[in-house]
């Protein structure tokens, strides 16, 4: 099988890699680029642990072929914190204990940030449906939903000039 050469932008930086045509974006991130923050929980788009942002839209990277990333922008969990500064979704996950094992956490954080980027004031129901594609087996979702609510409030304050 001849390899594909893919040129893409990952977390703002240009990246090139070689992969088989049937390699998923998730496998390319994890195996070729060493970005293991995106997790594989199912490989079929049913758990959301591999959620990344592809050209501004959140997708399951296990349901994207690596070749499709050619020329596109990919943002992963590794790019959510800017420099050493945590994003409010991350810091609120920590403040509220919204993770236990932490395996689903990268996917939740990428998805929750994507929600708050488009809607600064989602209702509990909107948060729950937005995150329905991210499975968490440890927390029962309660603290995750609260962390997203608190992050939203924090972001609204930041955005509103005092």
């Amino acid at each position, binding site marked *: 099988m001849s390899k594909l050469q893919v040129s893409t932008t990952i977390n703002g930086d240009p990246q090139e890699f070689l992969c088989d045509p049937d390699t998923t974006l998730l496998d390319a991130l994890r195996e070729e680029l060493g970005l293991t923050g995106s997790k594989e929980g199912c490989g079929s788009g049913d758990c959301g642990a591999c959620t990344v942002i592809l050209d501004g839209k959140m997708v399951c990277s296990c349901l994207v072929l690596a070749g499709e990333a050619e020329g596109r922008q990919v943002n992963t969990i590794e790019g959510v914190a800017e420099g050493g500064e945590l994003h409010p979704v991350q810091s609120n996950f920590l403040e509220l204990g919204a993770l236990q094992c932490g*395996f689903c956490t*990268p996917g939740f954080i990428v998805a929750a940030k994507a929600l708050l980027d488009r809607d600064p004031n989602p209702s509990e129901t909107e948060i729950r449906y937005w995150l329905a594609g991210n499975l968490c087996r440890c927390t029962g979702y309660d603290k995750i939903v609260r962390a997203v609510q608190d992050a939203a409030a924090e972001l609204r304050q930041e955005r509103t000039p005092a």
Partner: protein
Amino acid sequence: MNAPQDKRSFRYVGTRPVRPDGVEKVTGKALYGPDFVAPNMLHGAILRSPHAHARIKSIDLRKAEALPGVKAIVTGADFPTLESLIMAVGESSSDIVHISRNCMAYDKVLYDGHAVAAVAATSGAIARQAIKLIDVEYEVLPHVLDIEEALRADAPVLHEDIFTKGVNPKPDKPSNAALRVEMAKGDLEEGFGKAAVVVSGRYTTEPVHQGYIEPHACVVSWNADGQLQIWTSSQGHFAVRSLTASVLGLSQADIRVTPLEIGGGFGGKTTIYLEPVATLLSRKSGRPVRLAMSRSEVFRASGPAPGAVIDLKMGAAEDGTLVAADIEFKYHAGAYPAITAHSGASSAIAHYKVPNSRVVGWEVLCNRPATKAYRAPGAPQVIFAVECALDELAGKLGIDPVDFRLKNAVRPGDKQFNGMPFGEIGYAECLEAAKAHPHWSAPLGPNQGRGVAGGTWGNYGGPSTAEVSVAEDGSVLVTTGSPDIGGSRASMAIMAAETLQIPYEKIRVTIADTSSIGFSMVTGGSRTTFATGKAVTDAAAEVVEILKERAARTWGVEPSEVDWRDGEAVCLAEGRTDERLPIGRIAGSAPFSGGPISAEAAINPGGYLAGYGVHICDTEVDPETGHVKILRYTAIQDVGQAIHPDYVEGQMQGGAVQGIGWALNEAYLYDKDGRLDNPGFLDYRVPVASDVPMIDTVMIEKANPDHPYGVKGVGEVPIVPPLAAVANAVTHAAGVRMADLPLTPDRVYAALRAAE
């Protein structure tokens, strides 16, 4: 033992600081099982049986071996022949022969997904291609999946060498009944004679999977001198070491197991599946090998909790006193014997005083994956039936279901079934809290119903080792051998901070590999905060003594003239009471006062106490479609003392939602050939965020007097009450008793129509 201190005097216990491993986990840096990479690593793949029950007639590896890039292949023939030996697995035990055969079949495959051969190759794609080139000739045998069918005289027998344990005299023929356990007291006939009301019925539950999101994965690197390293995610890397050593006949000291972060376990990662296979592949190839399961392999080949058939009869006197209970339950064991019937039998009515009772439990072998521990293993199924029956009894007597439970609840000093008195347990307090909770008295709308249920789990202690050492600047390192599955690093740091009286942030916690710290049992059975926490506390207390002694030497006073307050030595000697030596100063000069400062505690503490919970659930049933909506949910639990309340609440909420999934939708579905039909998260339906409301929690803090900080285990209990809490709520909403889980829309719909 130290008496628990007054809760209000705690500075760190009961606070909610950020966990020490938190930032690593929210930024994607933490390395879990599937993330670890060793240089020059090969990738493995496992060929699994497509048959539920078959004899392996031959395995032809030639085509696979010829594929470029294939470096090693192993089959059951590569595993050493073992003598039967019962070994501890987690807190329970298994025959090492069965553990070995479950890692790789030899002569027979016993379930769809049973491992038959494994390949290591230079890429995952080549390994997956290679296993397709392995020709296995099977003689397909009749299979059996269902508990009652497996017990029939004409059922296919899985193991010719298994005779029902617990039956006297020993049976003369092998059967699928692996174990019978009976616990009886009083006189049933006399008991039921006193009953004003009697209820009876049959309840069933389906096997369910722990559903951890991280599939099993490990990397093994074998060296030519017979020493090897294993990097794996598990609930106990010492268990990985001992089981791998036993399966392969290796010396434990030759195996170094490094724990990676674990992405959920709930009991399911207290055993081994991949490690011996990867070890053999690494030995054959001379290179490190990674083996990782796909989600479908996790469902097909790792151990679920058993399904159950429970027949039950219970009676109560006019005044609501329980007088008799006659319970017989049968659990799936899966392909190999398990021992969840013990805990089922000892938990079934352990939260109530029932003077006349008989509880009989069975473990039944069938062609499904071998069942394994899942949160309070064995308790949720039978307690589901008991708590539904209590609901029926309360209804017939016209007594409030919480009052009815309160009247019969066990309290401190009451005798347990085995004759031992209960310690400082808090079931009655949980029930009182349920009664007082606004949820219990909130109004309900049409098609809505409320259910309540209690539950218990015995909890555990078990051996743990912890080391506390002071760095030169006075910051502190805590090292344990207990994998952190849900925030235990934070609890360990809190208990160390409390004991050392230094800020939480000054303490860092490491989970050391098996060669770097002494033995600890698995993180499971709700034992870690209790037992490993006590080891940490003991070691920290010893460090305090060392620090005091070093201060005494520095000052030239007696150790008895030194007190330890707020992280510094305080001189009590006359005329010198303003002298202080902070921990940093003592640590900095430690080489000159006797050497580095550290202490280790290696203990096996008793004094653990059972946990109790009461859950309240409101549901709404769509009468036209049978859909059940969870409207409101409250979980109440005696947690002893919550060290880090966020993670205690998290255990309660997570357990409750797992229980809701068990009650509503989760089940293994097999086709007629015994192949698993839903080995993925699409059709194995764990609850998603939009399926559940906020889970309100009430922590009852009735401290355990036998733990320095009052800890009782908290992780298991919260999965026990939800099955009946949900079923009772649906029953009241639908107006018809729901006795068969899961309560999928089609089942609820059928029950509604049948009741019309």
